[in-house]
C-alpha cells in the first residue's frame, strides 16, 4: 500500500544576472526525481551537500513550490496530488504529513512552553478544548519518554536530545501517517543519537508510521531504512532495498560513498576509493551523465548521453550506462 508517490519532481531556481535581472539559467536543484514510500516503510534519501535531498523533502512538504511533477499522497484509499494545490487547500492535508527538523535549537520557539509547543498543531487544527489538548500533550510526552512535568518548562532548559524528542512529539500531535525527517540525528552526540534512532524505530512499530528519512550518514541509514535512494546533483542515481544497496551497489557514486564511510574497526583499514575533483556546480552541470567527471569507469557515451533510470531486478534501479557490466564493491553482508 503506497502512501507517497513522487513522480518526476523538479525544482529549478532561476538565476538572474545584471542590472535588469535577466534570466540567464537555472539551478536544477531537483531534476526529475521519482520514488514511492509504502505504508509503514522507511525510505532514506541520501546524498552529500548540494545533491538536492533537502530541497526535495521541502517540496514534498509543500514548504516550497515544485517547478513541476506530482506529489501523490494516499489517505484512506483516496489519492491526491499535492503539487498544484493552493495554500488553503493544503491545510486539510497538513495533518497527514509532518516534519522533524535537523537543528534542535532552532526548531522550537524559545518563548513558548513545551506544552504549548506540542499543542500548537492541535490548536491550529480545531481542538479548542484546553483540557483535551493537555491530555493529548501528556499522551505525546509519554510516547517520547519525557516526564509530563516538562510541559511547563521552556526549551532552553533541555539538551539537544530532549529537544529533538519534543520536536518529534509535536510532529506526532495530529496523528500523521507520513513523517519527513530531515537529518534528525546529525546534530546530536553519538550516545544521544542512538536513543533517538531507537525512539524513531519504536514509534514506527507502535503507530505504523512511514518515514522519509533524509540523511547523509550512511551508518544511521543502514539501521533505520527499508529502502535507500541515492541522489547526486539533483538526480536520483540509485534506489534499492537497503541490504542490496549496501552489499551490491550498482552505481559508481554509491560505491565511492560507501567506501568513504570510516569503519569503527581498526583491523578493517582498507584502501578507500578516493574520488577526484569536486562536486560540480548545480548551475552548470556536466554534459551527459552528471557524475562522469569523477567516475573512474566513464566512457565517451557517459560524456555525451544522459543515462536513464534502469531496472536491474528486485526493486533495484540505477542511472548508469554500464550498470549491467560493472562489478562494484559493497560493504559486506550484515552481521
Amino acid at each position, binding site marked *: 500500500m503506497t502512501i507517497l508517490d513522487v513522480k518526476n519532481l523538479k525544482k529549478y531556481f532561476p538565476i538572474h544576472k545584471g542590472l535588469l535581472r535577466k534570466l540567464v539559467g537555472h539551478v536544477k536543484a531537483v531534476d526529475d526525481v521519482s520514488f514511492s514510500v509504502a505504508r509503514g516503510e522507511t525510505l532514506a534519501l541520501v546524498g*552529500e551537500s548540494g545533491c538536492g535531498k533537502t530541497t526535495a523533502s521541502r517540496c514534498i512538504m509543500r514548504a516550497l513550490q515544485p517547478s513541476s511533477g506530482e506529489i501523490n499522497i494516499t489517505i484512506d484509499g483516496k489519492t491526491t496530488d499535492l503539487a498544484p494545490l493552493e495554500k488553503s487547500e493544503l491545510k486539510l492535508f497538513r495533518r497527514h504529513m509532518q516534519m522533524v527538523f535537523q537543528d534542535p535549537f532552532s526548531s522550537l520557539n524559545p518563548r513558548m512552553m513545551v506544552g504549548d509547543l506540542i499543542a500548537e498543531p492541535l490548536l491550529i487544527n480545531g481542538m479548542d478544548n484546553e483540557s483535551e489538548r493537555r491530555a493529548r500533550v501528556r499522551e505525546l510526552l509519554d510516547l517520547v519518554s519525557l516526564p509530563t512535568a516538562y510541559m511547563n518548562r521552556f526549551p532552553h532548559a533541555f539538551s539537544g536530545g530532549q529537544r529533538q524528542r519534543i520536536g518529534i512529539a509535536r510532529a506526532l500531535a495530529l496523528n500523521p501517517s507520513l513523517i519527513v525527517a530531515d537529518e534528525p540525528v546529525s546534530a546530536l552526540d553519538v550516545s544521544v543519537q542512538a536513543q533517538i534512532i531507537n525512539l524513531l524505530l519504536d514509534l514506527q512499530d507502535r503507530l505504523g508510521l512511514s518515514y522519509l528519512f533524509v540523511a547523509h550518514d550512511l551508518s544511521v541509514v543502514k539501521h533505520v531504512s527499508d529502502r535507500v535512494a541515492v541522489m547526486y546533483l539533483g538526480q536520483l542515481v540509485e534506489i534499492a532495498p537497503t541490504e542490496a544497496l549496501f552489499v551490491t551497489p550498482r552505481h559508481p557514486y554509491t560505491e565511492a560513498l560507501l567506501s568513504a564511510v570510516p569503519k569503527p574497526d581498526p583491523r578493517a583499514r582498507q584502501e578507500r576509493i578516493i574520488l577526484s575533483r569536486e562536486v560540480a556546480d548545480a548551475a552548470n552541470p556536466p554534459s551527459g551523465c552528471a557524475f562522469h567527471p569523477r567516475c573512474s569507469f566513464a566512457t565517451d557515451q557517459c560524456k555525451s548521453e544522459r543515462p536513464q533510470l534502469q531496472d536491474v531486478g528486485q526493486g533495484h534501479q540505477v542511472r548508469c550506462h554500464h550498470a549491467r557490466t560493472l562489478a562494484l564493491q559493497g560493504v559486506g553482508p550484515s552481521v
Partner: protein
Amino acid sequence: MPPILMVDLMTTSQPLLSVKNLKTYFALDDGVVKAVDGVSFDIHAGRTLGIVGESGCGKSITARTILGIVDRPGRIEGGEIWLTRQAEDGKPYQTDLLTLPLEGPEMRAIRGKEIALVFQEPMASFSHYYTVGNQIMESILLHTALSEEGARQRAIDLLGMVGVPKPERRIDDYPFQLSGGLRQRVMIAMALACDPHVLIADEPTTALDVTTQAQVLNLLQTIQKERSLSVILITHDMGVIAEMADDVVVMYLGRAVERGPVDAIFYDPKHPYTKALLRSIPSITAKPRTKLATLEGSIPHPFARPKGCPFHPRCAEAIKGVCDSHEPVSIAQGEGRDVSCFLYGGQP
C-alpha cells in the same frame, strides 16, 4: 627527510609531547566549570594520537591549552606540558610550556612553528579580508627568514602539496571563493607552512561531506608519512579514530577515562563509558531496522557535575558508596594503557 629530532625520538621512543595532569577551569558567574580536569597523555614522533569524546568532554579545550590560546575566562590551573625541542647544537632538550609566558616570544615561536593547529570550521578560521596566499605567507614570514618572493613560492608549493588544483592561481583567491574541502586543505597547508613537529587537528572533517572527508583524511595520512609528523586528531567520530589513530585517549567531562593503542581500545575496551560508546555507534554492516544499544541519560550540565566519578550516574557497573563519592585514579593496564575506573583498582 624527517628532521633529525624526529629520527632521534623515534629511535629512543621518548615522547615528543608529554601532557601531565592538565587542568583548565572556567570561572563563570554561575560557578566554576572544570573543562579539563587532570588529563595526561603522550605523543610520540610520527604517530597519531586520537582524542575522542562527546560534547563537553574538553577535547578542544585541551588542544587550545597546549597552544596557550584558551579564551578568557578560562585559566590553566595546573599540570605540565613537556615539549621536546632541538637546541642550536642539535641536542634535544625539554621545556614545560606552562612555565612560559603565554604572550612571550618563546611561546609565539612554538605556535605555528613547532606545534600547529587545524581548526574545525574553515570558514570561521580564515580572515575574510585577506587572500589565502596572504594568510599562508603571514605564517611563513613570521617564522622563517624567507623573503616575500620566497614565501610566496613556498605557499604555492604547499598548496600543490595538499592537492589544490592550479595553486599558482588559487593562491590569490579569497576564502569564500573556495569550497569546504578546498578550504580545509588550505588550512592544512597553512598549518604545515613552517614544518611543525606536531599537528593538532580539531575536528578537521566534521563539517565536510563524507567523500571530501575521505580525501582530507587521505591527505593527512600521506603528509604524516612523508614528514614523520606527529598528529593529535580530535574528533567525536569513532570511525575516523579507527581509521587514523595509533593511540587513543577517551575523554568524558574533562577527564581522560581510558588510554591505549587503538586496537586495544576497540577490541578490549575497559572503561564502562568506552564500552557503552562503542556499542551505541551505528554500524554500516548492521541489519536494517535494528535498534542500537543505548547509553541511558544524557551528558550532565557542566554546572551540575556529579560527585565522585563523573560517569557514575550513567554507569551500569557503578559501585555504590565508592563511585558516587570518590574520584577514580588512573590505573595502569600494561604498556601505554590506563583506565580511570574503580573496577580496576584504586578503591579507597
